[in-house]
């Protein structure tokens, strides 16, 4: 009897499929995913905190300036292009919608408020994620898998201070500036389509902007831009920094997947946080 009991207790002799297992599997999967996500969130928060702690250290300024150039200055042309056509489309759509009610005079305010409060910060953040965020993840990921980050450790150089902190600070500075560029060029795009192409009065267009746009709208837009900057920079740096710990792949493939994850996660978090911040600011 004792022998029988031992057999039953042995894990390899346990039945492979118990009736409850099928029911439990989805909950196990969801539970593991949620725990993993919360773990990741916690680690990323600590990662951000540690990087920010390293901000005000000597020799950081030149690195921050260099990153502002890469993240900010070099993203300007694409931001200008996207904002111009976004403004033009907004002007076109809003003109055709408002003209039905004889309210085409409000095109300027509609275009400018849409851009300043919503589209400017969101589209700027998404464009920078696509252009600079992916590059940040790939750069740090390659540095990780080629042991360059380990080399920094051996040289007594803190990798968070050297690699991550300047990027986060540069993003916090660049995002609002690029958002401002986006807003201005977008409003100009609305002017081109509404006034130049569709014959709306230019004075009316500008006057409606002056009348309906208040300082808090602009401030709120910039607050969003800063929130997005922190999210995008942290997510992109974090994904690259821990590319070697991915369970789904290794080496160059891990860097590729980390880059994809960084872009997708950043975009999703931009939209989620946009709702949260908007609901808090309204």
């Amino acid at each position, binding site marked *: 009897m004792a022998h029988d009991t031992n057999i039953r207790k042995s894990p390899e002799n346990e039945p492979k499929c118990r009736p409850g297992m099928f029911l439990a599997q989805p909950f196990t999967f969801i539970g593991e995913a949620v725990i993993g996500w919360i773990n990741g969130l916690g680690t990323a928060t600590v990662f951000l905190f540690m990087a920010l702690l390293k901000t005000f250290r000597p020799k950081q300024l030149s690195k921050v300036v260099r990153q502002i150039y890469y993240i900010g200055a070099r993203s300007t042309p694409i931001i200008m292009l996207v904002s111009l056509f976004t403004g033009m489309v907004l002007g076109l759509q809003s003109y055709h919608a408002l003209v039905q009610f004889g309210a085409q005079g409000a095109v300027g305010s509609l275009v400018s408020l849409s851009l300043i409060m919503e589209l400017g910060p969101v589209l700027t953040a998404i464009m920078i994620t696509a252009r600079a965020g992916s590059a940040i993840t790939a750069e740090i990921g390659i540095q990780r898998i*080629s042991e360059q980050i*380990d080399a920094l*450790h*051996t*040289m*007594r*150089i803190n990798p968070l201070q050297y690699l991550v902190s300047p990027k986060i600070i540069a993003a916090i500075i660049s995002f609002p500036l690029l958002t401002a560029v986006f807003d201005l060029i977008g409003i100009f795009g609305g002017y081109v389509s509404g006034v130049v192409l569709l014959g709306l009065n230019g004075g009316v267009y500008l006057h409606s902007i002056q009348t309906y746009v208040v300082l808090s709208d602009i401030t709120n837009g910039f607050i969003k831009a800063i929130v997005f900057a922190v999210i995008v920079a942290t997510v992109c740096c974090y994904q690259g920094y821990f590319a070697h710990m991915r369970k789904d792949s290794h080496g160059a493939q891990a860097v590729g997947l980390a880059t994809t994850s960084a872009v997708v996660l950043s975009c999703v978090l931009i939209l989620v946080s946009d709702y949260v911040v908007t609901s808090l600011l309204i």
Partner: protein
Amino acid sequence: MDTPLIEFKNVTKRFGEQTVLERVNLQIYEGQTTTIIGLSGSGKSVLLKHIIGLLEPDEGTILFRGKPLTEMKKSEIATSLSQISYMFQGNALFDSLTVYDNIALPLRETTNLKKAEIDRMVMARIEQTELAEAAHRYPSELSGGMQKRAALARALITDPRIVLFDEPTTGQDPVRKNAILSMIAQYQRKFKFTAIMVSHEIPDVYFISNRILALYDKTIVFQGTPEELGNFDHPFNNEVISSLEGLQKELTGLYSKRQFKILNHVQLERRRHFKNVNHVQLERRKSGESYCVVVFTLSNMDAIISSLGHDAAQEVIHSLGLYIDKHFGAIGGFSTRRKSNEFVTMLPFSDLVEAENILNAFVKDFQEQGIRDIWAETQKQAPSVKCVDFTIRAGIAQGQPIAEIDAVIDSAESQQKEIGRLRCAVEE
């Protein structure tokens, strides 16, 4: 013996279910070159990463100058680790920085030195590592050997007391492999740092190592001098040394010291067998019971390296080894590289008179043609060098089967005299 600089006591490291190091005990002493040898994937790099603090042991203790790291304050650990530099297997150079910037990076980030001072120190290292023309190029634009030198220059820029080399010769051709090892040995002597190296390059690493640590089956099975390793009776010697030694002929085309001794032993055994089965012939060849050993030395290696550079200096050794082997191999002799600049040739069936005649013929041939051939090969590595001075010495000694081969070699070495000299590409 002195307190070890670094000591492992029962260090165990696991990655998940896999145990990589198990109860590892080792001692590393200050000022020496210690080489850790073992097969690929045996945990050599993991062991090295424990020394620099990139990994921590799951069990056991690591002591630095006799004090456990676990009992040190954070600042003490930082001070200890700041004396260590690490040269990665894959170099780990920053590919977005030029060679100059890579080498300057530790100074810029961890010191408050002025720009001019950093520039002076970096340029000095660049000159020493023969990277002047590559200073403003990116790592991806350099050859493998130049990348290694850049990584070495970066590792040495902070004047570390301890330098760890993780397979510094990986992916290099035989001449460059030996050039890198020679460079490490030269810098170790010059800057007096403690070198800890992981390598497969058997027997080449023996020439520059004071101590060998053998990692086998997750633990250190041998600690001692390269000579002591030759007498180490353990499966490691058969399984690891033999398999790695298969590649040893790359640089010189010669036997390793171990294979040389085995070959010598086999020759003597054959002769004993011959003695047992054929007394008549034995009597006839009685005078042939002795053998002769010739020791060749390329003098003043440091001066050659400083004139020609490491690569070309290794080419001189390579060509000399080939030339000796070609000449003596044709008449039944066999040779080995004994030191980085010394060769030993065994003439198993010659007495002293016969061996001297053979050597004289070699010297004549060498002076007429050999030295020119060696210089011609060397100039391919260093085409800009027009003037160099090197001397080759040789000594001969007769041994008996009962005599220790090492004593005969020492005797030959002590009787060396100059057999060839090259100065400014003109034979004298």
